[in-house]
Every structure is written in structure tokens, then in C-alpha cells.
């Protein structure tokens, strides 16, 4: 079997598994799997958006959770104000809360993207270690900002009591919610795949490898990296909005650097610059957490060495092992 076909089979197999999983879970009366895999899909979406930075753009961001958190808080804050029937802001115009997914999820995307634009435009003026540290610093700043917001529960966060509403679907139904998340993941993957293969994507991928040559060709990489950073932030915001719905709970923990680190682990496990790999990485990470945590709270003791082995022996992560693909991204 040639490599391309093998890759297509792996992707098709994964898609089929995710499509059929809820039906199997219902048949086996293990409906718990539906919510577990909803989580995997949402974290997968966040990890894919991070892969855009790490694997394609060569931008090592250690603050990606900030955008997940902002997306979650957008959904949470709108929900809270809809419940309390109190406008979010009344000056200079009145903005009411909302539980409508068609409003709050796009807002989660836009507002996270906006934060990525502002933060990215500053961070991208630095390189290497400085870039890593400054992305982390901004994320921690946002974390502490939300810790200080007493109105929305401060440190403890906020329970939402129900999920967003969506015409035609009942998101409170785990089955509906699962397919809704899967649909969004597929849509996001499709967009990212097009972007990565496009002329824009070529510039970004080239810039991650040799910025000097790109400049010699007349291309200033800064703006391209910034747009890439915004797309990644917006994707993370969508994941955050879904996560708030999935758990019906938001807290500053969603912005903490530990979540940024976990997302990074998912990308590395699944395969840097493989686009689909991070979803596999999210699945392995969360399933390991789920099973190992039953035996020990120090489950990371097992995750750590496993990650080291994968990173050393599989250049393209677990996804690369499955597809037999070891280099060339895209």
C-alpha cells in the first residue's frame, strides 16, 4: 500500500470511528463514552489550532490556553447575563446576554481572534525563547485578570446550569452535542487544510524554516505569521466555547499555562505538523488520563516517559507511525 493511500485510510478510519462511536456506545449502554469523546473532539480542535502555530508556523506559543479560556468566558458571561436578565454592558450601548449558540459561538471565535491579534502583534516582534516567554506572560496576565473578576466567580469560576440553545438541535442531549462538536471539528479541519495548502500556507511554512530566504524573495513574514496566529486563536476560542458548553462550567483554570502545556503534549504525541495527528494526540492523552487516573493521581508519571519515547522515536508522532510518514509536513 503506498503512503498516500495509507494516510487516507488512517484518516478515513478515524473519521468512521468518531462517526459511529455514539451508536456503539448507545448499543452497549455505555453512554458515558459519548461525553468522554465529546471532550476528546473539543480538545482535538484546540490541539489542531495549536498545531497550526507549532507545526506549520514555527511559532512556539506557550499561552494557547488563553484563547480557549477567552472563548469559554464569552459563552459563560453571555449565559450568566441571560440568566440574570441583566445587560452585560449598558454604556455606550446596551448589550444583553444570550444563550443562543448561533450568537455566542461566533462571538467566542471573534473575540478570541481579536485577542490573538492584539497579543500576537506584540509577541511576533520577538523570536525564539523571548517569543515563548512572552506568549506565556500574556496568557498568565489574562489568567490573573479573570481570577480577579469576582462577578464571574473569580478563582472558583461559574456554573452554567445548562448548555447553549441551537435551533433544530438540543445541545443538552449528549448525542446531539457530540455530533455538533464533530461537525465543527470537521469544518475546522477542512478550513485549516485548505489554508495550509494555499499560497498563504506556503509562505507561512516556508517562513518557519528559512526567514532570510523569504525576505530575499521580497516577503515580510510578520503579517503572515500574525494572520496565522489569529486563525489559531480563533480556533482555540471555538474550542473554549464548546468546552464551556460541554462541562457547563467555566473557570480561570482554562487559561492556565498547564492547559497550554497539555495542548502542546497532545500536538507532540499526535504528530507535529500533521494536522490530523493532534486529534489522535488528544484522544490518547485524555484516554490515558481517564484510565490511569483510576489507579493513581500521579498518572503523569506514566505519561511523561511515554511522551519522551514518542518524541524520540517518532518524528511525526503517533499519526506518523500509523501513516508511515516521517518527514515533509503538509
Amino acid at each position: 500500500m503506498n503512503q498516500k493511500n495509507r494516510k487516507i485510510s488512517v484518516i478515513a478510519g478515524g473519521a468512521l470511528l468518531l462517526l459511529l462511536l455514539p451508536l456503539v456506545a448507545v448499543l452497549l449502554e455505555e453512554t458515558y463514552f459519548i461525553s468522554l469523546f465529546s471532550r476528546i473532539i473539543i480538545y482535538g480542535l484546540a490541539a489542531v489550532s495549536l498545531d497550526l502555530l507549532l507545526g506549520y508556523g514555527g511559532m512556539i506559543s506557550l499561552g494557547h490556553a488563553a484563547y480557549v479560556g477567552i472563548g469559554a468566558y464569552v459563552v459563560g458571561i453571555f449565559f450568566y447575563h441571560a440568566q440574570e436578565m441583566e445587560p452585560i454592558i449598558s454604556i455606550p450601548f446596551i448589550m444583553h446576554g444570550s444563550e443562543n449558540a448561533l450568537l455566542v459561538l461566533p462571538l467566542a471565535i471573534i473575540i478570541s481572534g481579536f485577542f490573538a491579534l492584539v497579543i500576537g502583534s506584540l509577541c511576533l516582534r520577538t523570536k525564539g525563547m523571548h517569543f515563548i516567554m512572552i506568549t506565556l506572560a500574556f496568557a498568565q496576565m489574562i489568567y490573573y485578570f479573570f481570577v480577579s473578576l469576582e462577578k464571574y466567580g473569580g478563582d472558583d469560576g461559574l456554573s452554567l446550569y445548562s448548555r447553549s440553545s441551537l435551533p433544530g438541535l438540543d445541545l443538552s442531549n449528549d448525542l446531539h452535542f457530540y455530533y455538533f462538536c464533530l461537525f465543527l471539528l470537521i469544518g475546522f479541519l477542512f478550513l485549516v487544510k485548505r489554508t495550509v495548502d494555499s499560497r498563504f500556507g506556503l509562505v507561512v511554512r516556508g517562513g518557519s524554516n528559512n526567514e532570510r530566504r523569504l525576505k530575499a524573495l521580497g516577503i515580510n513574514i510578520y503579517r503572515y505569521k500574525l494572520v496565522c496566529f489569529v486563525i489559531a486563536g480563533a480556533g482555540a476560542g471555538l474550542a473554549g466555547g464548546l468546552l464551556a458548553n460541554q462541562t457547563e462550567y467555566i473557570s480561570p483554570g482554562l487559561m492556565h499555562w498547564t492547559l497550554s502545556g497539555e495542548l502542546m503534549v497532545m500536538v507532540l504525541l499526535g504528530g507535529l505538523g500533521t494536522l490530523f495527528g493532534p486529534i489522535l494526540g488528544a484522544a490518547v492523552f485524555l484516554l490515558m488520563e481517564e484510565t490511569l487516573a483510576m489507579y493513581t493521581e500521579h498518572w503523569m508519571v506514566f505519561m511523561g516517559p511515554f511522551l519522551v519515547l514518542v518524541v524520540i522515536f517518532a518524528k511525526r508522532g503517533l499519526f506518523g507511525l500509523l501513516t508511515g510518514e516521517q518527514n515533509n509536513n503538509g
Partner: protein
Amino acid sequence: MAERLLEVVNLNKSYGALQATKDLSFSVQKGHIHAIIGPNGAGKTTLVNQLTGDIDSDSGRIVYKEHNITQLKDYQRARLGIARSFQITHIFENLSVAENMALALFAHSGHNFRFWQKSLHSSSIRDKLPEALARVDLAARAEIPAGALSHGEKRQLEVGMALAAEPELLILDEPMAGMGPGGTVELSKLINALKGSVTILLVEHDMDVVFALADMITVMVYGEAIITATPEQVRRDTKVQTAYLGEEA
């Protein structure tokens, strides 16, 4: 008819106590192949980097097409039609050979904020890509990651990308180095074929190539331009013979 494309006036660059280029002044006529020769460490690459904006000059002036470009950034100069190859290969090792060449071809066809169409299917390059690859003998290697090419092939790609940008001023820093005898002959032919249509600044150690191709030669020694003249004059010049050619003979 002689029209100046590039003029360098009193250009300087020091690295600490070492003055890599010293009061360099010369000009390049449009359509010429202008060679820069000089012993190792003479400052040729430093000069190239100053011209392309890869490094800032300490003082002096660079005038291109009657515009002072000394303060412009590297990518801005590239957009004015200055393309270069690097002495030390700078290619996109993570991209395929075709994608490398595509990026060079895109340089002159509008902006790159195109998110939808596959890059290699873009109408602005589809027709030019096969030719650009064939020109440096890489057509058969199009699909391979550039990082997997042999050393000689990487050199071909390096030079091919500079050519593909369709520059008005093409700066080649030792393009023949590492190409092997066959590649050197091919590339000489290629450069000769461009004669007249593209202005070329050629840094090269291979004297046979230089004297066969160049219209004008600037000889650099210890950061200074000791002469800018025709190949015949340079060959006869006693300063050059003692300072440079004499050493080699």
C-alpha cells in the same frame, strides 16, 4: 547608451576592529555581467549582504535605478527587483522542490493572502513552474522535500530560486561553488543566456568563468575595491597581479 543600474558610494562595514568593506565605490551598468573577485575574506559576501539589505551598512550610499535604497529593508529591496543567491545555501528544507520554486515565482505576482486555492495550482505560476525547475535540472525532483536533495542539487535550487524571481538585478554569491564540473558548465551557459536582459552581479572564484562571462570586474582586497575595469584591463593590471592573481599563480 550606458545606463547605470546600481551605484555604490563609499560603502563601509566593520565587525569590531575588522573592516570588512572599506570605502567601496563602483557602479554597475544595466545589462552587464559585473563580476566581483578577490581572495577569501576580502569582503565580497559582506558587500552582497549590504546591497541586499541583509546587513545594515555603517556608512555610504547604495543607489539603485536612481533611488537611494540604503535605508530600505531587505524585503523592500527584493520587491524593487533585486534577487540573490546565497553562498551558504538558503532553501526551504521542509518544503518540496516545487514549493520552493513556487515561492520564488510568487515574488512577482501580487500578494500572498490567498487562502483557498492550492498553492501549486495557482494560475500565476502553473505555466512557469516546469520551466523554472527544468532550467536548473530539477524537474525530476519536483516532489522531493528540498532537505533530501544532494548538496549539488541544493546549490542548483539555490541559484534557480534567484533566477525564478525574474529580477532586474541578479546577485549571485559564488553560484558555482559545490555544483560539480557539469553544473558549472550548465550554469555558465545559463548566465550567458541572460546577458543583456538581466543585470548580474557575480561573485565568483572560478577565474575561467569570470573572464569568459564578465563585462566588468571589480577586484576586492582586504575590503577595498582596488580596481573596476574590463577583463582585459584587469588581466594586465600590475596591482591586481601582485595583490591577487599573483598569489594564485
